[in-house]
Every structure is written in structure tokens, then in C-alpha cells.
């Protein structure tokens, strides 16, 4: 899957957990999920659980530690899909 295709599937998941005071137009591949998009740590877990269902992959604790931006998520998903 191309990173564009992954991004397209990832975007609606991120939007689901975006706080009301953050504009959806602020989302871009470099967005930091917690610092810029203000997704809290509990909802970051929800994002990952939805990603696991959508892409049929499983995140490990190490993946969670590496996950900061949407691009990080795309890279992690791509590595797992190519295995």
C-alpha cells in the first residue's frame, strides 16, 4: 500500500478522536498527534486500536513509543504490511 493510500485511510481515524477545538484542516502528515492535534494519551490508544482493525496489523509497545506524528504511523503501518 502506498503511503498516500495509508494516509487516506488514517485520516478519518484521526478525525474521530480530534478534540472539538482543533480544526480538521490542521491535520497534515507531519502533525504531532498529541502536541499539535491535542489528542490525549487515552485517545492515542483508541487511534492505534482502530488502526489495528483497519489495517489488520498489531502494534507492540515499541511501536507505541515511536509514534509521534501521522508520518510515524504511516511508516509503522507500512513496515508491518510489508512483512
Amino acid at each position, binding site marked *: 500500500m502506498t503511503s498516500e493510500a495509508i494516509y487516506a485511510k488514517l485520516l478519518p481515524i484521526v478525525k474521530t478522536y480530534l478534540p472539538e477545538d482543533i480544526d480538521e484542516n490542521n491535520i497534515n502528515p507531519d502533525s504531532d498527534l498529541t502536541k499539535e492535534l491535542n489528542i490525549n494519551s*487515552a485517545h492515542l*490508544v483508541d487511534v492505534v486500536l482502530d488502526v489495528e482493525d483497519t489495517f489488520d496489523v498489531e502494534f507492540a509497545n515499541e511501536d507505541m513509543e515511536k509514534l509521534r506524528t501521522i508520518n510515524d504511523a504511516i511508516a509503522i503501518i507500512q513496515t508491518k504490511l510489508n512483512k
Partner: protein
Amino acid sequence: MDLDNILAKLPYSTPFLFVDSLSEVNESGATGFYKFKEDSFFYKGHFKNNPITPGVILTECMAQIGVVCLGIFLMEAEILKHQSVAMSTTNIDFYKPVFPGEKVKVVSEKMYFRFNKLKCKVRMLNEKNEVVALGEISGMIG
């Protein structure tokens, strides 16, 4: 881990401890009890001359027994060091009032525990075994 050990590890004290005892805690859930003392601080103001246990206090009691006690057990089972707890989401419906002096039972069922987030279905029952409150609570534990 024995139940007294879980109680000893709870990070609360009077006037904000809402767990008296636990009857069962395992991989899939927790059950415990609390009696709302007549002289609890919140009855003075909730409501004026008409004391009823506030929903936020019922929610707190459900979270302490259903999520935090279970979380302490699960962290211990994974040999992780338990450091802190924080409520992240609650969605509770209330069905019956709880008056001063009533004893309640709280029963939780684990929905998932991943990346330190523990999400549970939690119900509170009164002494007549009627559902007082029912919903979902999640918290970050670790």
C-alpha cells in the same frame, strides 16, 4: 495477589476513598463494596436539606472499584510498576438515587487493557440488587 494488598495500594484516602472491600478481582473484572457514610462532606451541599449522593461521587466509586482496583491487579500480573492513575473517559447512565447510609456493590468487566489504557463496563447495584448506575469508564494506569 490478595485483595487486601490491592486495597493497600489504592492511591486515595478519606474523604475521597470510596472502596470498603473487594470480593473478587481477576483477569476479567472486579467486584467490590462501599457504604456511603451519613456524615460524608458532600451531603451538606448536595442538595440543601435534601442529601443525595452526587453522580460524580457515584462515578468516582465505580472508577475506584471497577477500574483502579482492577488496574492495580492487572499491572501486578504483568509485573509492571504501578505509578499513577488518571481517568480518561466516562459514560454513565444513572437510574436510582443513592441516599446517605446506603451500601452499594460495584461490578466491572474488562473490555480491554492495552498500552496502559484500561476500559471497563461498570455497574453499580444497591442493596435491593437494583441497578443504580451503568456505563463505561476508562483510565490510564501506569
